């Protein structure tokens, strides 16, 4: 069972990660590079040193590797969630789990922390990371309580869990972005779309590969 889960997560994450990396290459990465031009110009004006650590092909390769790692992680988390809740693992159901995960890690978190381009005003990183994680976990648990538990008390707890993190949302930094607002708006939308596709694809492929493996195991 463990080997089957790991194989499924690895293959699904690898394929989904490659597809999302290609998508990033044409959607979010050009916006990040454009924002860095504005950021570098500002730094040059201030006399500070700026510049990306990686560039060209090595940067694309590193980004793709990180995206594949995240996608394998997403696929494994979705498989674990379906196993824990006793669901049958199938493509359509797994994609729905992915959609709910996107609501938790994408939609809920972007209310308090909009997706950011380099060079945008920002507050302390650790506080933002803690809020992001807590919000994703609370929203995920809240959605599970709302959609999968039957008692009215559980549904109330679910709504509270979804709403609660937003009372503690991080204070936004004073706006001082070097990137134009139009660029930032396009990036926020593209980033959410890319994240939605990552979760849905990781889920659907995990379901599909799980099913293919069970067909292979059946005696013919």
């Amino acid at each position: 069972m463990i080997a089957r889960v790991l194989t499924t997560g690895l293959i699904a994450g690898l394929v989904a990660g490659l597809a999302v990396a290609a998508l990033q290459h044409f959607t979010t990465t050009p916006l990040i590079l454009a924002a860095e031009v504005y950021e570098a110009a500002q730094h040059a004006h201030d006399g500070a040193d700026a510049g990306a650590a990686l560039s060209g092909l090595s940067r694309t390769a590193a980004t793709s590797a990180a995206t594949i790692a995240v996608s394998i992680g997403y696929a494994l988390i979705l498989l674990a969630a379906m196993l824990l809740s006793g669901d049958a693992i199938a493509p359509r159901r797994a994609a729905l789990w992915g959609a709910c995960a996107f609501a938790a890690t994408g939609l809920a978190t972007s209310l308090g922390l909009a997706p950011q381009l380099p060079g945008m005003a920002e507050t302390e990183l650790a506080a933002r990371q803690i809020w992001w994680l807590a919000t994703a976990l609370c929203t995920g648990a809240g959605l599970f309580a709302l959609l999968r538990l039957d008692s009215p008390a559980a549904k109330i707890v679910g709504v509270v869990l979804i709403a609660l993190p937003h009372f503690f949302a991080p204070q936004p930094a004073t706006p001082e972005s070097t990137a134009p607002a139009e660029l930032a708006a396009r990036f926020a939308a593209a980033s959410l779309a890319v994240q939605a596709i990552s979760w849905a694809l990781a889920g659907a492929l995990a379901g599909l590969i799980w099913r293919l493996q069970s067909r292979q195991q059946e005696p013919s």
Partner: protein
Amino acid sequence: MNAKLSANAAALPSSRLEALKAAAVALTLGFGLVWLAGFAYPKSVHDAAHDTRHALSFPCH
């Protein structure tokens, strides 16, 4: 506590127990990978994952 846990484990059918074990391994590995690519602090990890962190709206910088 331990006695209660093992009593519960004994009451579970072995297939369910196996599924729970696999889920625990998958969850740990999955969170580990997302943590490494999306949150970890070392500069080399941050630089390599930089564009992915921004693109998938993880908090960055």
